[in-house]
């Protein structure tokens, strides 16, 4: 209790001192126990004033300081750095917020604001009296990263990580790499196809010795914490030997009696149980879909490479970080949504792209030639009453680009865009321009008055009250209605649940801070990239993949990690293991260990976030938070309300 404490009360120009009598605050706290020095300062954060504090700490041998100023969100780190520069442990510095919680909040009541400021500073002084010097928790880190999902984001991240010098395990659930992008032909702005992009990335991935690609592989179990995760990966066999004769393969596909809807083509075509999605797909070895295979053995008779005896494998991996790039699902319209599922000429944009892929010189669907195409935008996105409030970002551009492709590829096409405002943001604006110059017609409605698709005398009519024509009711006879569907999170959230990655209101994976920490999750060591985090185009997915790769690499690069010391600790003599803390912990940081024949709780310091959820549930009061202990809290409360 014989700390020498320095207290600085900041004017913040006039932001604080216009409402709070800072001199009165100083006078009220100068005689508090332990306060050796108290000053007011015009701008505590100014360089010269920071230097003055450093000098004070050194000259007066202060061992605790309080700065009463703005929110700690703004300058906590600034003054922690001041403490460190002066040779004082940064946890011996306590921040008091008398601006956001004082002058700004109570600008109508100056005496009240001053009184509150005095109490806030006193409570900070109470805390600094108990403060202890803390050192970061040091853990070892395995120099390897698991990348989950070998779409374009995952492959790009894997390449980056390998180039930086990390071991990479690229884990893909499907038998083929490329994800959604391999389902797309011509891409926007850059004149290349999705398949070309996938091929380039795949070739690069394969070049790196330090990348190991698993296909047909799923993360089954996971344990450990940042720097030291243990993963169990379940690998489903392709049932093919490594070399495969193309002629024999063709025969094997022919003789396979099983036909199922081809998900790669969004069920507009059928495929066999032996399949590859397109001829040059990577890895170039086909696979057998054992969910549908009847094991009739017909294929084995015509193709030597087939081996139905291959077994599932479990592979154990040790990694320092996990990068999740599991992508999105296209929105599946509800039955009857704009005629989907009820009228046979209503398709989604992903389906339409596949239709265009297969129609060479004449656009036909279900045997009928298509001339007039009505595109309905924002299906499954920007829902006012539905769940998907967000804009899916890619659809306007993607659809307009597809409409232009269709117009150039086939003769006499008329495109009608029933939109809610076109968002071909950034460089994609040129496509909107080109499409309208090619004669595409844009009709717009608001969310409460969407277009209506109806069948009238065998014709499909799309009606709209067009806001661009003074709400005039207009209609188009459409041969095909394309629902421009947005992105939704993957239906299968098993990875998210396993890793406990929190999801936002939109159900996509959530980052810690959208702007400042865009690829980290609250699970230390788990980063996110690509459209699994929210709708993104390819360029944005690449950006996030590179950012996440860098972030993951920073965790494994040096082989060791320093973590915040402000975590929970167990009073081993008081704990008698009831398990309540384990249940309450949102981060699985607490587990049961044995001690002298008894079970007690153990906090994994590298996983614990110091959230404090375990404290109130403990019946023995055996848990405490380092840096914010019961003693700290109680002393602060006493300072705030001394009369109770």
């Amino acid at each position, binding site marked *: 209790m014989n700390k020498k404490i320095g207290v600085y009360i900041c004017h913040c120009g006039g932001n604080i001192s216009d409402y709070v009598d800072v001199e009165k605050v100083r006078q009220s706290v100068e005689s508090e126990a332990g306060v050796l020095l108290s000053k007011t300062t015009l701008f505590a954060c100014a360089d010269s004033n920071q230097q003055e504090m450093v000098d004070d700490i050194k000259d007066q041998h202060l061992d605790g300081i309080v700065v009463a100023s703005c929110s700690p969100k703004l300058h906590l780190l600034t003054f922690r750095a001041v403490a460190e520069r002066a040779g004082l442990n940064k946890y011996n510095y306590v921040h008091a917020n008398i601006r956001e919680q004082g002058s700004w909040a109570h600008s109508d009541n100056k005496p009240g604001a001053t009184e509150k400021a005095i109490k806030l500073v006193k409570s900070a002084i109470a805390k600094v009296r108990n403060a202890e010097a803390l050192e970061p928790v040091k853990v070892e880190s395995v120099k390897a990263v698991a990348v989950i999902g070998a779409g374009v984001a995952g492959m790009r991240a894997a390449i980056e990580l390998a180039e930086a010098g990390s071991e990479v395990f690229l884990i893909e659930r499907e038998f083929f790499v490329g994800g959604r992008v391999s389902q797309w032909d011509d891409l926007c702005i850059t004149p290349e196809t999705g398949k070309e992009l996938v091929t380039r990335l795949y070739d690069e991935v394969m070049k790196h010795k330090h990348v190991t690609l698993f296909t047909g592989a799923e993360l089954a179990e996971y344990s450990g914490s940042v720097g030291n995760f243990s993963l169990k990966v379940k690998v489903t066999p392709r049932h093919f030997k490594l070399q495969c004769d193309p002629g024999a393969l063709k025969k094997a596909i022919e003789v396979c009696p099983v036909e199922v809807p081809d998900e790669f083509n969004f069920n507009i075509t059928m495929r066999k149980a032996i399949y590859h999605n397109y001829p040059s797909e990577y890895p170039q070895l086909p696979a057998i879909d054992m969910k549908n295979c009847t094991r009739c053995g017909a294929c084995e008779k015509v193709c030597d490479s087939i081996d139905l005896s291959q077994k599932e494998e479990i592979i154990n991996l040790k990694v320092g970080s996990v990068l999740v790039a599991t992508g999105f699902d296209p929105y599946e319209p509800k039955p009857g949504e704009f005629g989907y599922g009820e009228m046979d000429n209503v398709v989604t944009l992903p389906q339409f792209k596949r239709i265009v892929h297969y129609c060479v010189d004449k656009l036909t669907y279900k045997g009928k030639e298509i001339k007039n195409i009505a595109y309905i935008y924002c299906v499954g996105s920007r829902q006012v009453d539905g769940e998907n409030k967000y804009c899916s970002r890619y659809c306007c551009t993607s659809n307009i680009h597809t409409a232009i492709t269709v117009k150039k590829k086939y003769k006499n096409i008329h495109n009608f865009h029933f939109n809610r405002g076109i968002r071909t943001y950034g460089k994609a604006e040129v496509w*909107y321009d080109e499409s309208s110059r090619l004669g595409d*017609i844009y009709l717009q409605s608001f969310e409460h008055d969407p277009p209506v698709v109806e069948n009238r005398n065998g014709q499909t009519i799309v009606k709209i009250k067009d806001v661009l*024509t003074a709400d005039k009711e207009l209609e188009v006879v459409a041969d095909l209605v394309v629902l421009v569907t947005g992105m939704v999170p993957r239906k299968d959230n098993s990875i998210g649940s396993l890793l406990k990655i929190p999801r936002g209101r939109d159900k996509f994976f959530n980052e810690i801070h959208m702007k400042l920490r865009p690829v980290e999750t609250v699970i230390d060591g788990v980063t996110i990239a690509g459209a699994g985090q929210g709708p993104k185009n390819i360029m944005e997915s690449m950006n996030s993949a590179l950012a996440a790769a860098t972030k993951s690499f920073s965790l494994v690069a040096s082989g060791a990690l320093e973590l915040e010391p402000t975590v929970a600790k167990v009073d081993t003599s008081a704990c008698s293991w009831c398990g309540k803390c384990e249940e309450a912990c949102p981060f699985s940081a607490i587990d049961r260990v044995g001690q002298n024949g008894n079970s007690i709780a153990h906090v994994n310091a590298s996983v614990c976030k110091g959230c404090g959820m375990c404290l109130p549930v403990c019946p023995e009061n055996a848990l405490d938070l380092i840096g914010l202990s019961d003693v700290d809290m109680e002393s602060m409360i006493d300072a705030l309300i001394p009369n109770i």
Partner: protein
Amino acid sequence: MARINPEFSDELKKYGAFDANACYNCGNCTAVCTLSDEDNSFPRKMVRYSVLGLEGEIQASLDPWLCYYCGECSTTCPREANPGELMMSLRRWLTAQYDWTGFSGLLYKSLGASVTGFLVLALAVIAFGFSMDFRMADLLHYGHYFEMGAIALVASVILLPNIIHMWYQTVRKPGTEAGLKTYFTCLRDLLVHMFTQKRALGCDDNQFRWFEHFILVLGYLSLLFTTVFLDWFSTQSMFIIVLGYFESAVIFVVTFDFVRRRIQKDHEISKHSHSSDWFFVVWLFLMGLFSFLVRLFIDLNVLQQNMWLFMLQLIVLVQWALLIVPFGKWTHFLYRSFAMYFQEIKLAAN
């Protein structure tokens, strides 16, 4: 409920429209237009109707005639969709729609048809000259009769039914109920706009354009009167002779300036010239010039030896009277003033 017709914009391009589809509905064109107001908001609405191919709505609208083409909309259009020229093309298209004979549309859309028409009439006049042995007195006589006959015929058979058709499309069909008294009281507007083109003064560009056009109209109408009713080519009255010289000089001087501007393309309004625009200004120029020269040759007593000049004058006159007046750009003189008239009636009736 209106059905969209994407083919319409292709049709309109044949009348001179450019890239109306490039429009992204910002409305700058309407915002900068000094003639557009709450009752008649244009040109954006017309651009939109054209893109959507709402022919019925365009036919029922008077807006194209209420635009006097300063070109501000085209210069400010961020997408270079050229709304000014679109309005011009709509006027051509509407002219073709009002015309019951269908010739207007044919001549606007096909330069070949126009040239053929002009050639046929020229040959007919030459053949007529042959049959008269190019006798000066007879030709002057019949030329004069032709003028009177053509005016009567074109006015009664073509122009009047077309005006009635315009009235039906723009006033009657949209459901305007106006009493005879309204029609009568609004007549004043018809006459004012017909003879002054007062509305063009509302355009923000050079008022000199209005002045040139104004004296051209006065010059043209009075020369018409002077030749048809005062028989300029045969009169002995010094006053009438000088008057005719003056009027024909006004016509060729002003139209010379119009032609110069269309060649130099120094203003938005003269940047885009459809063949019908060229026919109109060049033929008007030739009419003024040839009339002037014919009367000069008469006064110098050399016309007898130079009947080629009179034949040229007659060819130009016949082509003008039988092609340009009933089916070509001349009709804007009527449709513009009647549009103002119908507009006043509609406002009065509502």
